[in-house]
C-alpha cells in the first residue's frame, strides 16, 4: 500500500494489465483504494489486511503468485513502473500558461481531472479565452453554474461537467465515434444518446456538422440550460447546419419551457427533440418545425425522413414482423422458470432508453438508476426481477476506469446473471469509438461463452442480445465487432431501442401481442408507422 499516492485510473488499468503478464504472477491489480475497488479486490481474493485499512487517497498493489519470491518480484516490477513517468510523445507541460506559450492559438481545452479540482483549472482556461470540454464528474452544481455563467459572459462554451462526448469541427472529442461530415447539428445532455443518434444518422447515410455535449446537469433547473441554449443558438447561425436535434433525459420543467420557447421563437431550422420517454404532449408550445420523439431510435428516424430520400431509413429500422421472427427461436427454447430481462449497460443514456421501453411493456423495472426511485435496486451488486444496470454509475466507477474501457465488472456480472435460473434474456451495449476499449466485443466473448455454458449445464438456453453503437470508420470497426459477437451466438440489433424491444418480446413471450407491439411502434419508434 502506498499512502497519499495518486495515479489516474487509466494509468492504473494499464499497469494492472501489464502486471498480470509478469512471470509467476497469477493475478494482479493496481488500484486507488476506493470502496468500489476494495470490494472488487475482495471478490477476486486480492484483498489482504493491509488493503482493508487503506483510504481512497491510497494506492494498493495486489499480487497473487505461486511463491513469496514471485510476489516480491511482481511488486518490485510494478513499483518500478509506477516510478517512471508515463510515456508521452510530444509536448508535456506542468502549467496551463506554459502549455499556452507553446500553443498560443489553442481554441479548446479538454479537462479530465477529479471534479473537486475542476473550478480553478476551468476558470483559468476560460480567462485565457479557451472553450472547454469538461469531462470530469463530481463537480458541485454551484461550481457548474459559476463556470457556465463565466463562459457565457465571455461568449465561450463549457461542455460538461460530465460531458463524455462531443464532435467539434469534425473531430471526435473524448468518447465519440467517427461520423461523416454533414448537415445535422446535435445538442445533447446525454453522452451515449449523442453517440447513438450520431451513429444512426451516419448509418442512414447522413452526417453531422457539430455535436455538442452539454453534460447531464445542464438541463437541471439551477443551471437553466445555459450551454444547451448557447449551442442551439450557435447551430442556428451555423451555415453548415440544416437541422438541429436536442437529446436529453427529461429536463426540469422550467428548462424544458425555456428550450422550447427558444427554439420556437428564435430559430428557423427544423428542430427535433428527444426528451427520452416524453412524447411532447405536455408541451405548452408547438410548431410545425418541431418534432418530439420519445426514443433515440425515433429521433434518428425522424432526422433521416426529413433529410433524405425515401427508403434510406430502412437501414436502421426493422418491422414488427421482422422483430418477431428474430426472437421466435429464442422464445421457443426458454423454459418456464425463465422470466426476467437483465441489461448490462456501459452507456447511461442507452440504459435509460431501455428503461423507457420496458416500462411500456412490463411496467417500471429495477435499476441502479431507475425511472422511478421506488424501483432503485437495494444493492447494485444484486439484480432483482427485471433489472437494468448502468455500470457507468458512480458506485462502479469511483477510482476505476469507465466500463467502456475496463470490462472487468461487466464480465463478472454477466457470469453472475447467467447463474440465475429466472433470467430469460441478457442484453448489453457495445460502445465503439475513440476513448473506448480497443476490442469491446472481443473482450466479452469468453465471458459470453462461459455464461451460455453455465446456463446449458443447468438445462437452460440463455439468449444474449447486443447492440453495437459505432461505425465502420471507428478504430474498432463495427462490422468486425458484430462478427465476433455473432460467432458466439449473440443476436445483434441495429439500434438499442430494437434490442430493448426484443428483450421484452422474449421475456414476456406469452403476453405481448402483435397488436400491442404495433401500438408501441407508432408511439415510440416511428411516429409515422401505420398499423
Amino acid at each position: 500500500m502506498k499512502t497519499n499516492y495518486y495515479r489516474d485510473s487509466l494509468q492504473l488499468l494499464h499497469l494492472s494489465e501489464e502486471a498480470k503478464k509478469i512471470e509467476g504472477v497469477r493475478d494482479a491489480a493496481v488500484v486507488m483504494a476506493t470502496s468500489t475497488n476494495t470490494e472488487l479486490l475482495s471478490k477476486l481474493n486480492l484483498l489482504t489486511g493491509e488493503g482493508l485499512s487503506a483510504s481512497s487517497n491510497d494506492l494498493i498493489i495486489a499480487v497473487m503468485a505461486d511463491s513469496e519470491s514471485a510476489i516480491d518480484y511482481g511488486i518490485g516490477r510494478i513499483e518500478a513502473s509506477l516510478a517512471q513517468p508515463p510515456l508521452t510523445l510530444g509536448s508535456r507541460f506542468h502549467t496551463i500558461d506554459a502549455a499556452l506559450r507553446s500553443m498560443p492559438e489553442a481554441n479548446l481545452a479538454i479537462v479530465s481531472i477529479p471534479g473537486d479540482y475542476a473550478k480553478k483549472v476551468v476558470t483559468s482556461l476560460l480567462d485565457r479565452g479557451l472553450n472547454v470540454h469538461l469531462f470530469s464528474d463530481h463537480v458541485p452544481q454551484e461550481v457548474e453554474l459559476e463556470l457556465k455563467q463565466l463562459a457565457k459572459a465571455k461568449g465561450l462554451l463549457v461542455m460538461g461537467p460530465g460531458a463524455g462526448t462531443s464532435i467539434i469541427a469534425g473531430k471526435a472529442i473524448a468518447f465519440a465515434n467517427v461520423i461523416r461530415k454533414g448537415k445535422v447539428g446535435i445538442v445533447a445532455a446525454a453522452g451515449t444518446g449523442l453517440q447513438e443518434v450520431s451513429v444512426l444518422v451516419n448509418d442512414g447515410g447522413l452526417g453531422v456538422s457539430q455535436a455538442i455535449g452539454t453534460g447531464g446537469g445542464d438541463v437541471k433547473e439551477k443551471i437553466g440550460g445555459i450551454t444547451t441554449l448557447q449551442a442551439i443558438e450557435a447551430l442556428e447561425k451555423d451555415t453548415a447546419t440544416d437541422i438541429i436535434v436536442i437529446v436529453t433525459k427529461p429536463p426540469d420543467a422550467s428548462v424544458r419551457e425555456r428550450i422550447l420557447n427558444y427554439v420556437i421563437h428564435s430559430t428557423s431550422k427544423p428542430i427535433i427533440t428527444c426528451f427520452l420517454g416524453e412524447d411532447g404532449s405536455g408541451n405548452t408550445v408547438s410548431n410545425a418545425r418541431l418534432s418530439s420523439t420519445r426514443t433515440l431510435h425515433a429521433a434518428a428516424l425522424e432526422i433521416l425522413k426529413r433529410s433524405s430520400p425515401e427508403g434510406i431509413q430502412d437501414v436502421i429500422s426493422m418491422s414488427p414482423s421482422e422483430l418477431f421472427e428474430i426472437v421466435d427461436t429464442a422464445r421457443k427454447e426458454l423454459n418456464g422458470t425463465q422470466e426476467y430481462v437483465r441489461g448490462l449497460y456501459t452507456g447511461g443514456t442507452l440504459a435509460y432508453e431501455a428503461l423507457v421501453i420496458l416500462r411500456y411493456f412490463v411496467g417500471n423495472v429495477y435499476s441502479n438508476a431507475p425511472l422511478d426511485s421506488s424501483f432503485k435496486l437495494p444493492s447494485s451488486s444484486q439484480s432483482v426481477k427485471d433489472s437494468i444496470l448502468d455500470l457507468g454509475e458512480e458506485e462502479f466507477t469511483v477510482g476505476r476506469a469507465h466500463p467502456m474501457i475496463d470490462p472487468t465488472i461487466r464480465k463478472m456480472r454477466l457470469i453472475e446473471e447467467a447463474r440465475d435460473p429466472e433470467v430469460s434474456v441478457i442484453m448489453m451495449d457495445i460502445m465503439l469509438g475513440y476513448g473506448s476499449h480497443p476490442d469491446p466485443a472481443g473482450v466479452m466473448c469468453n465471458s459470453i461463452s462461459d455464461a451460455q455454458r453455465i446456463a446449458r449445464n443447468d438445462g437452460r438456453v440463455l439468449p444474449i442480445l447486443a447492440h453495437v453503437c459505432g461505425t465502420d470508420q471507428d478504430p474498432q470497426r463495427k462490422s468486425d465487432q458484430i462478427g465476433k459477437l455473432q460467432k458466439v451466438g449473440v443476436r445483434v440489433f441495429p439500434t438499442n431501442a430494437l434490442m430493448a424491444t426484443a428483450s421484452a418480446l422474449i421475456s414476456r413471450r406469452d403476453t405481448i401481442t402483435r397488436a400491442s407491439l404495433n401500438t408501441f411502434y407508432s408511439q415510440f419508434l416511428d411516429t409515422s408507422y401505420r398499423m
Partner: protein
Amino acid sequence: MQMVEKILKLFDSELKVINVGLELFKNDLESQKVSVVQVSWQPYPKLEKEYEDILSKIL
C-alpha cells in the same frame, strides 16, 4: 442576444487543443491529426487544497 461568434469560430477552425488530465484523449486526438499539448496534472496535497480554499475565500 447571446454572443456566439467565438463558438462559430471554433466550429470553423482547425482544432488546437490543450489537454489537462487523461493522456488517452491526447493520443486519440493525435491519431485524428489534431495538434494537442498535454498538461500533466497532479492533485495538490489535501492540506494545501484546504488552505487554498480558505485563501480563495479571503482574497
